């Protein structure tokens, strides 16, 4: 008996997701090619937040460039300040005092914690929605982040963009009795994260939404140039802090957190564990903090104060999102001749196209969230 097969043909539907969509973490626009609920393709469009920072940097002096960079990745401003300051220091061969190195490590790890807390919150928000369980955990995590913002406020006077790093050191020394407050804040963070872990991990809804979704193979991750938690979740143990140590990272005792599955759940796990590792590093930096100068006193403020010799340099730091690099060309003046930033968000975001194919509409926001792009950093 001849079997008769029914053949269905679908019309593809194109849905414009963004740039005003609530869960695109800023201004990402993706054109979804859908067959019913299933995604055939996603065409990403970026550039809605392009500010021309790299060009702007050519018109400002090195001293002025450092705080400007912090506006790129606004969830981890200190990392951006660091990469710019380090590039100039390497080129001009400026030595950073040891106490300043420790303070830089402490500041960047505090911002890593803050950034990962925001990520975990928004990720759960993407999954649970502003009118559901996601928002509950989002608010818990933001309250924990608030304790770190308070630390920065006391330390530098600013909550969000601390403007802490200056070329040749840091701008502010620790206020009196700060270590006790740091320990309290870290305890708050640990407690909140453990509470959230208890709420979501093992919850069948959460596990079903994350396991096996958006699997990124290590080969693809490396060929795209992913870095940071996205790469480490695919099982590649690459961390700039270990591979190319800067500041006092070579004196710190910490592990590279990795996971093997490469799915959304693995990325969640890596970031959660990195929060604990970062808290561990902050405590070490606080305990091992040497006495001494923290940089030029009074702070370098005159735009022409720092000049770099002719030459070019590439420097990289590990931001909360991955390898953040700055390629700097100098013509011997007090301004950069050319600056190119290698932003981890941009490289990681390229994976989205490969990851969403074959998944459902609801998975797009989860996968996009799991890559943790910050669009100030993507578009620069």
């Amino acid at each position, binding site marked *: 008996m001849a079997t008769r097969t029914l053949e269905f043909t679908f019309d593809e*539907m194109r*849905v414009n997701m963004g740039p005003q*969509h*609530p*869960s695109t973490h800023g201004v990402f626009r993706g054109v979804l090619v859908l067959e019913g*609920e299933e995604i055939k393709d996603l065409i990403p469009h970026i550039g809605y937040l392009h500010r021309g920072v790299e060009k702007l940097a050519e018109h400002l002096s090195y001293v002025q460039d450092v705080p400007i960079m912090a506006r790129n990745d606004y969830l981890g401003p200190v990392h951006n300040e660091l990469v710019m300051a380090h590039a100039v220091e390497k080129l001009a061969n400026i030595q950073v005092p040891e106490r300043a190195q420790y303070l830089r490590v402490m500041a960047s790890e505090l911002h890593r914690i803050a950034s990962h807390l925001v990520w975990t919150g928004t990720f*759960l*928000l*993407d*999954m*649970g*929605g*502003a*009118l*559901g*369980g*996601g*928002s*509950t955990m989002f*608010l*818990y995590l933001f*309250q924990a982040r608030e304790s770190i913002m308070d630390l920065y406020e006391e330390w530098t006077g600013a909550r969000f963009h601390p403007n802490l790093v200056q070329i040749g050191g840091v701008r502010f020394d620790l206020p009196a009795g700060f270590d006790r407050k740091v320990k309290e804040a870290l305890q708050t963070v640990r407690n909140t994260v453990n509470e959230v872990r208890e*709420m*979501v991990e093992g*919850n069948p*809804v*959460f596990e*079903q*939404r994350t396991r096996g979704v958006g699997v990124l193979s290590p080969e693809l991750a490396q060929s795209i140039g992913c870095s940071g938690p996205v790469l480490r979740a695919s099982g590649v143990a690459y961390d700039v802090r270990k591979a190319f140590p800067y500041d006092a990272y070579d004196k710190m005792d910490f592990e590279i957190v990795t996971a093997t599955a490469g799915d959304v759940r693995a990325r969640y796990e890596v970031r959660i564990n990195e929060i604990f590792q970062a808290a561990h590093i902050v405590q070490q930096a606080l305990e091992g903090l040497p006495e001494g100068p923290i940089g030029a006193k009074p702070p370098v403020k005159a735009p022409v104060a720092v000049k770099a010799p002719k030459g070019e340099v590439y420097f990289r730091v590990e931001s909360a999102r991955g390898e953040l690099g700055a390629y700097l060309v100098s013509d011997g003046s007090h301004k950069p001749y050319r600056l190119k930033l290698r932003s981890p968000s941009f490289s990681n975001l390229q994976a989205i196209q490969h990851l969403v194919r074959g998944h*459902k*509409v*609801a*998975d*797009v*926001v989860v996968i996009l969230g799991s890559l943790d792009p910050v669009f100030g950093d993507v578009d620069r």
Partner: protein
Amino acid sequence: MKWLLVAFWSVVILSVALLIAAYMIWWERKFAGRMQRRIGPYWVGYPHGWLQSIADAIKILRKEDIIPKNADKWVYNIAPFLFMVPPMFLFAVFPFSKTWVVADLNVGLLYVLAVSSLGVFGVMMAGWGSHNKYALLSAMRYVSQMISYEVPLVLSALVPVVLTGSMNLGAITNAQKGLWFALWPVVGWVAFVVFLLATLAEGNRAPFDIPEAESELIGGFAVEYSGWKFAMFYVGEYVHLLAVSILASVLFLGGWRGPLLPPLLWLFIKTVFMYSVLLWIRWSFVRLRVDQLMVFNWKVLVPVSVVDLLLAALWVVLR
């Protein structure tokens, strides 16, 4: 003059239901606020922002009513009515006390289930009429979800019917004179839990709120609506929730029955309790995906409720 009396009570009950719906919104915001270490609405009305819902209603009614250029206007305009009105019909058959019932139908439960599923038409029309892809996707999700979850809802609601031997809601309440159906070992427990979950899905609440899914579909079928039409969708959702909370109290928690306090107060307490349980679940869980939702329904809820119904029938036969 019986019809005049019925009309009078209908108006009274509908007005009260709308007022209660407004305060359910307030209660939800307070409840969610406390769960999230916030205080919720506070400043409009002393104490604890009790006028907030009223202020919101006035604000939303004064908003501009926008009809998209390419919308199917007739369908678009009629959809909010079709969504809001069916849940209001339900209040006709609920027994608020021994004698307080507007229409004492013999097939009360059948009527409730039939009318409550009419809301699907409003959503489908809203999704189609808006001429918006997000709205259309959401409406398709809503329809498939409603039709699927109707099955366990009906099967679990049939357990009290089998145990009572009547579809009259008053008779079901009376049958729980001794023990509430929710407390009956195994049969009652399972039916109650399945009913609760199916209610969450029918009421379009997290973790089953995929038609609304504001992180993917930005609010779903009502995305193009504004002003009083959006208010109708919003209020319709809460009237529906109020209706199913009352229904759950009647079917499983003994309705107006209870010692000392007046019957109406007992029903009110049980309804608020049921509603708070729904809120508690909503504000703790993340959302399921559309395919996982269907798998959960057809592979877990439906078999469990079928077996439970059979057990109930067996118990009645062997008694």
